[in-house]
């Protein structure tokens, strides 16, 4: 990071800090605008607090979940939802496409090509005409959900950003301008401090596409998770699974002979083959399992870090309303604010860790030296 910080000048840093603060403050304003309002005043204070807690729990759960429409907020007094619908795409023996607004937020059943569907707790089930769920039917949901929509938006943003960076090089001849001046240090950081030290100068270039894309994608997605729109893409195991799977597949398909040899014959020439047999009964399965555990840990790490961060952050924000007094609320505001800043760091850190570990795995796949020296 040091190199990145060195190249960033003071003015840029100032702008960055200001924008971060704006986003954070907006986040809290948003949060304070949406949840719990005292709708019923006949309850006792304790009951009210319990109600609030369960409402906050519900909100957090909802926040972490994917949804079929782009829900921004709900006016609870009128029960009106603000947001926009997204297309639902189902594969249930044939293709069904309709807008999610037809569900009316889970309140009505949708008929599509003589089949009936219902939205229940964020999941689409096939039902009969009267709305009873048919358990035997498993429609596969390919809908453009909120997360998919945001993946598209972020990918587009990323593409425009980087395309402009590339263009700026042509304009000034080998020197970036505009957004390129922000992007280039990061690219160089990924190349010089992540890819080259772990993969080596000889092979690093073919992995740069994946490493850079993953770094920027995860970072941007994590950052978007912290905005008031509140889309947590890396909070879905399917997303982190996809990323980890790609790391795994790339590792395996670009692996050199020594990688496989190391898996099958981890001890090499250190002892006679007859002595190795009993060891290998144990060692080889462990080694083979290790290749899967590595990307698996990638998947869980990213997922768990982001999810935990969001739950804690949302809970702290919720605590402001549970305390409902000057000292407690302002204290939890301070805590939440600090954690918000920490989460910004985590957003970059998780992107860095994912990229770094991917690079380490790629490095082991193309390592050419004999493993005898290594052990």
């Amino acid at each position, binding site marked *: 990071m040091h190199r990145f910080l060195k190249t960033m000048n003071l003015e840029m840093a100032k702008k960055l800090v200001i924008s971060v603060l704006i986003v954070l403050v907006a986040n809290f304003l948003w949060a304070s605008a949406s949840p719990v309002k005292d709708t019923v005043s006949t309850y006792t204070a304790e009951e009210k607090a319990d109600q609030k807690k369960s409402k906050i729990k519900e909100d957090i759960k909802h926040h972490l979940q994917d949804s079929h429409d782009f829900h921004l907020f709900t006016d609870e007094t009128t029960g009106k939802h603000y947001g926009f619908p997204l297309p639902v795409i189902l594969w249930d023996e044939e293709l069904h496409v309709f807008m999610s607004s037809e569900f009316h937020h889970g309140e009505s059943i949708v008929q599509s090509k003589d089949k009936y569907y219902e939205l229940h707790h964020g999941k689409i089930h096939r039902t009969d005409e009267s709305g009873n769920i048919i358990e035997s039917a498993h429609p596969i949901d390919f809908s453009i959900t909120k997360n998919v929509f945001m993946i598209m938006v972020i990918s587009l943003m990323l593409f425009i950003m980087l395309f402009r960076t590339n263009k700026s090089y042509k304009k000034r001849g080998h020197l970036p301008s505009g957004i390129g001046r922000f992007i280039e240090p990061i690219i160089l950081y990924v190349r010089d401090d992540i890819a080259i030290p772990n993969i080596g100068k000889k092979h690093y270039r073919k992995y740069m596409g994946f490493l850079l*894309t993953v770094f920027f994608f995860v970072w941007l997605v994590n950052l978007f998770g912290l905005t008031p729109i509140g889309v947590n893409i890396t909070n879905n195991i399917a*997303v982190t699974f996809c990323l980890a*799977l790609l790391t795994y597949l790339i590792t395996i398909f670009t692996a050199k002979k020594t990688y496989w040899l190391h898996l099958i014959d981890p001890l090499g020439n250190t002892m006679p083959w007859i002595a190795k047999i009993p060891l290998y009964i144990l060692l080889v399965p462990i080694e083979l399992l290790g290749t899967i555990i590595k990307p698996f840990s990638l998947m869980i790490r990213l997922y768990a870090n982001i999810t935990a961060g969001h739950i804690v952050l949302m809970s702290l924000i919720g605590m402001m309303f549970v305390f409902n007094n000057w000292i407690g609320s302002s204290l939890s505001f301070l805590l939440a604010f600090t954690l918000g800043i920490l989460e910004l760091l985590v957003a970059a850190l998780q992107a860095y860790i994912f990229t770094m570990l991917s690079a380490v795995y790629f490095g082991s796949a193309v390592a050419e030296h004999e493993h005898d020296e290594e052990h």
Partner: protein
Amino acid sequence: MEKLIEEFSVGLFFWQTVLFIALIFLLRKFAWKPILNAVIEREEKIEGALKAAEEAENKMKELSANNEKILADARVERENILKDGRSIKEKMIADAKSQASTEAEKIITSAKEQINIEKMKAMTEIKNQVADISIEMAEKILRTELKDAKNQKKLIEEALKKQIN
């Protein structure tokens, strides 16, 4: 774990995979490759420029070292030339001096000889003239004196007296 599997959304996985792979390929083509190429090209350019500068510096150093050497050589040469000149001068002066002195000696000796010769000549001439004059006088005197005997005698005596003196 069960919850994770239950939460796993096939649709999201499908879209994420499709979109992400598309993103990788698009960015590779339109961003990473050209950007990295530009950066590498720039780095190579800078490296080349630095190397050229270093080379130029080395050359300059070499040149200045050469210059110094040439200067030192020139200085030595000058010294040598000066030294040679000085010695030649001295030799010339010495030679000239010795030559001059020998010449002077020669001239002096020859002059002396000449003088002696001239002196001798003059002496002999004077002697001869004196002899002639004296003979003439003697003749005249004799003629006059010898007109009478008495005078003759007196003259002879006088002459003799003179001669004796």
